[in-house]
């Protein structure tokens, strides 16, 4: 199948899969939805959150399920046991915070507030993806790249590895505040090539470099567009730009998401207005969809003029639908007055581009003749549920890194991990081309003065990376003993004075385990007499989340709960649980101390898919990829054989409530 056909079909399937799965879930009764963590039932309305009149507080019994701050959800009356369409007619809300059994939501529609009376009961459901506009943009981006003369020809050449990489001028001297040979090399590449890719392994200052590149481009009076996968990443980059001395007046952002973290003084951009006359010497930050606005508009106008209706899917066979869509797209693209990239922006900086699918990246790549990609394909890949069907796993960053080795630079000095923490990921994921900076190399963890004897060797400065074995079996997405131990370790560290926001994070592959850890944490804290206010503050600040949510962040101490020990689960979820990228992200968040908790069964397991699969042809390639993936964990385990501590008995004593706290004895 042609390159574009694969992506079109994958996009189509992804949308249909996600939406049908979410809608199907909503058809189930509330109790069942709650059981799978996809709904919170028995929410009791408490009132508004002080002066924040659009923020409303609810209490709920039990665990927060899959919900987290920042999630979009639907709020509906509990009285009628809503399901299906009744839920879809509920109020769209955004979760502001969840701590303990208290949730604060942001209700976008003011008028809905009238129905919120204290004591009334509500249900909160996951909101099915209604990203028709985004889907339409991605579909349009593919059509643009496939059929247009400009910018299509350039985009097609880029994807095929045939983009000429002529030098745009003499290299500029790297800025004085940019140290490191690789960083300077990457800077030179970004400033002189129409296409450059900078791989930023964990803590290597990728965002710092991005800010220096952006500053230099702005100094040249250029129009710069900054895009990333998430608003959080965009905001981080804007902070880095301000820190690099770029005046906020030269920065703007098309708003979206949680903007509390945005640096002050940044211009609030209206997407449509900005693109009508982009100013020089100005950086506009936005999502990839924002960057596609000029083309969306042009194609939209063209579509409204065409006599050909958008093809309906219903009542057609698949091929006829795709044929009709192709015809429609050709006509819309050829009839559109497309803006030329040169008139829109001079350079696009694409951060986190290893998490961007090809269609997503095309949205941004179309808006400027030059592009600098920042990413790390050894970290998490794009989320793409249809990838397996159409082999569309590869991110734009991975593609460019593979097809343009001459413009690819890997930053190799990490300012995050100390020497020991850096060793394994360096060897396993970065071809031994990663080393700690002098400032990070000898960084060690100083444990609180008094810790229980059982934790003393684990929290000692050396070894910095340890394995805590908990010998459980048959656990799937939740391992109670492990959760208890992780919670107890965290509590010990926080009681010892660690800052819950800055110093510590707890990670797990699944939300169920992070929920279990939070519950265990609350329970243990209660038995130790921790004041409720203090506990709420800890729970509000402490990051207990999945690995995927932690990418891009760091803490002094990371607790990573591997969780699974059930052979069936390890077989069934093998491609997720043994994904080397996820393990890489998990073990490279720590500055001083990494504590991995897991059952030996996780490490010893050989997935059944490997023992039964063929090893020739395509099957063989898949088997070898799977074997390489499980070997990442196995090698890490073998590497840590002299750094492992069996705390099964202690975890069991915690479970039975017999564990003694020597500090309180």
């Amino acid at each position, binding site marked *: 199948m042609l390159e574009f056909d694969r992506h079109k079909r994958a996009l189509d399937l992804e949308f249909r899969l996600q939406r049908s799965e979410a809608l199907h879930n909503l058809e189930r009764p509330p109790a069942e939805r709650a059981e799978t963590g996809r709904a919170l039932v028995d929410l009791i309305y408490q009132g508004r959150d002080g002066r924040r009149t659009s923020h409303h507080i609810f209490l709920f019994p039990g665990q927060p399920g899959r919900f987290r701050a920042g999630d979009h959800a639907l709020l509906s009356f509990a009285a009628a046991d809503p399901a299906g369409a009744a839920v879809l007619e509920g109020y769209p809300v955004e979760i502001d915070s969840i701590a303990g059994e208290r949730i604060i939501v942001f209700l976008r529609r003011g008028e809905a507030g009238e129905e919120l009376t204290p004591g009334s009961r509500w249900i909160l459901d996951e909101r099915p993806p209604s990203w028709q506009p985004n889907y339409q943009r991605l579909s349009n981006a593919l059509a643009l790249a496939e059929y247009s003369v400009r910018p299509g020809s350039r985009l097609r050449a880029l994807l095929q590895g045939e983009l000429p990489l002529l030098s745009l001028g003499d290299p500029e001297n790297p800025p004085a505040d940019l140290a490191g040979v690789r960083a300077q090399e990457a800077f030179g590449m970004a400033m002189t090539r129409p296409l450059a890719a900078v791989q930023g392994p964990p803590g290597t200052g990728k965002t710092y470099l991005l800010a220096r590149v952006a500053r230099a481009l702005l100094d040249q009076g250029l129009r710069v567009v900054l895009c990333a996968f998430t608003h959080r990443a965009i905001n981080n980059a804007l902070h880095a730009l301000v820190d690099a001395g770029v005046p906020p007046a030269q920065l703007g952002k098309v708003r979206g998401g949680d903007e509390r973290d945005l640096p002050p003084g940044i211009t609030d951009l209206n997407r449509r207005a900005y693109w009508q006359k982009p100013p020089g010497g100005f950086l506009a930050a936005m999502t990839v969809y924002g960057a596609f606005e000029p083309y969306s508009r042009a194609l939209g106008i063209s579509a409204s003029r065409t006599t050909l209706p958008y093809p309906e899917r219903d009542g057609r066979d*698949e091929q006829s639908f795709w044929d009709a869509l192709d015809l429609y797209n050709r006509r819309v693209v050829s009839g559109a007055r497309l803006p030329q990239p040169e008139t829109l922006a001079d350079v696009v900086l694409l951060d986190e581009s290893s998490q961007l699918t090809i269609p997503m990246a095309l949205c941004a790549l179309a808006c400027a003749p030059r592009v600098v990609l920042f990413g790390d394909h050894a970290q998490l890949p794009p989320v793409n549920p249809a990838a397996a069907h159409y082999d569309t796993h590869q991110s734009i960053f991975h593609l460019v890194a593979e097809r343009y080795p001459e413009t690819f630079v890997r930053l190799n000095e990490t300012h995050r991990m100390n020497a020991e923490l850096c060793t394994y990921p360096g060897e396993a994921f970065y071809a031994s081309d990663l080393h700690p900076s002098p400032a990070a190399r000898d960084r060690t963890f100083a444990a609180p003065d008094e810790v229980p004897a059982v934790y003393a060797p684990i929290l000692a400065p050396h070894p910095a990376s340890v394995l805590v074995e908990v010998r459980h079996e048959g656990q799937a997405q939740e391992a109670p003993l492990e959760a208890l131990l992780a919670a107890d370790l965290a509590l010990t560290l926080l009681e010892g004075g660690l800052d819950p926001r800055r110093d510590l994070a707890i990670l797990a592959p699944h939300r169920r385990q992070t929920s279990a850890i939070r519950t265990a944490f609350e329970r243990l804290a209660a038995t130790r007499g921790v004041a409720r206010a203090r506990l709420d503050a800890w729970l509000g600040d402490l990051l207990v989340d999945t690995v995927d949510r932690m990418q891009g962040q760091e803490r002094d101490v990371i607790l990573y709960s591997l969780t699974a020990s059930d052979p069936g689960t390890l077989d069934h979820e093998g491609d997720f649980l043994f994904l080397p990228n996820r393990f890489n992200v998990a073990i490279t968040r720590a500055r001083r101390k990494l504590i991995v908790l897991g059952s030996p069964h996780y490490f010893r397991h050989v997935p059944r898919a490997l023992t039964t699969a063929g090893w020739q042809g395509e099957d063989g390639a898949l088997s070898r990829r799977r*074997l390489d993936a499980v070997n990442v964990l196995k090698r890490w385990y073998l590497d840590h054989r002299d750094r492992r501590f069996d705390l099964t008995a202690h975890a069991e004593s915690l479970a039975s409530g017999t564990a003694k706290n020597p500090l309180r004895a």
Partner: protein
Amino acid sequence: MAHSVTGLHIYYYFGHLCDYQAWRTVFEKRPPIDDPGLLLLLEQGRRNEAAWVEHLREVHGEVLSLQGGTMEERAERTLAAMRAGAAVLHNGVLDGGPAGQTLATRAAGRGLDLRFRGETDLLIRVDGMQSAFGTWGYRVVDVKSSRTGRLPQFMQVAYYDRLLEGVQGASHGRGSVIVFPDGSGGRAQEEFFDLEPLAPSLTLFLEEHLPELLARKPEEIAYHLAPHCAHCLWNDHCRTRAETERDLSLVPGMQPGHRRAFRRAGIDTLEALAGVTEPVLEAVAREAPSGGDTVRRLHAQALTLRDGAARPRMSLRDAGALWLLERNRVVREPFEANRLAVLVDLAGDAVAGTESAWVVRVGDHPPQKFHAGDAREEELAFARFLDGMARVHERTKGRFTVFHDGGGLDRRLERLFEKYPAEGRGEIVRETIGRMVDMAALLRRSFLFPVTTAAPRDEVELYLQAGGILPEPAPATPLGLATHLAETAGVAPDEGLAELTEAAARIGIRPDALPERLEPFIALRMHAERRHPFWMALVEDLQIRRLARLQTALRLLRMAAPERTEAAHA
């Protein structure tokens, strides 16, 4: 007394052994093999190996055989031959050298006296390789009877290589297995693979898991009765233990994860599970690997087992179900009404590597077949097959179930679709695959004798009719059922079954184990050897009789309960 860990242990472990089997195979002499299927497999393995040795003899001029004598003597002779630079060594023995010593020392730390050694199929000299012998060394080759290489085979070679590395001080880095892509006895092919990626799994097994496992007492090793336990040589041990302890795995459908979840809640026995209260059940449901539905079903199962009532969803291969059968419990599978049953089968031509597909619709409609006469017609047949499925989908408005007879048919269909990606037909393929039901597995669950797939159409009909008419209580064995049905209907039992029963008695196999034991023969029927005329005659007989047996059973069922048969049809 020292116990040996051999390449065969490694092969079996990575292939299919549970912890208890792994323990027994190291510590106990294996009972003599009486399974005709295994005997035939072994014989074919020997022939394949001999054929490849003959081939090597033609290529290298000489193959040194190291058979005969004790293992220690053979190890010494192997070492001497390698030092002397023999080109090919057949059946050389590696006693592990320093690598084996390291492992043995580690095991000794746990109070174990283990030897690590292996009897290789072939050691091939590699010139230009630096080793303890000089500028030559050896690499390991193992001859297998399979069509393609598998990980357990690679692990076995990796184990030999580790022992060899201890002897010659270096590893070649690559190993190979000889496989037979066209089936055993056909064209041979050498499949190479890198050994380094296999090292972590092997090390974890040899240095971590195995010593830990072997240091345990047998009664400390966890067991769990599962469907495949019915084939195990030591099934009696676990079943006896389970019955004595009233273990939870006696409940059909109980997965290890469920059992652990129940145990964590203090529920250790079948009776305890039956008597569990709702709050406890809810707590277990939250913790169990699969959802609350499964936990509740297992509870209901336990409840009725305790009370002696019937429960559905059991398989003859399920050790728990066998236990039930012996106590005259009834097995029944619930049926889904008002759906058109569609049979899909895919016939393959292993030599040409092509497949032809057809659809058979059950009911009043005549079967439709879309058959490729030769390889060139494969694409056309596949396209017609998809047309057929599209029509079924359209006419039934999606109310149909696709039955198939296993054999990875879903994967094969997907492969065909990748090969001939007919535009617009992906949805049909996905729909078809999404609705597939493994008929053989269903039949095994719903019938008291393991029906196989000689005549799939009849089996589907049988399955659909059997819904409400299985007798209660059921006889304890498959043959018992046939006899019971025959008696009920007043007709003579099927002749084929009688013959098989006599044959089984002659060779000392329990009659109820006969169909299971004979299964390998069915797979191997294309490779009948003169050496085993009796066995192969039996296989032929079984094949021929199977259809007759099915038809007889169907007739018997109709006679036994005509009204209910009609009702099931309606």
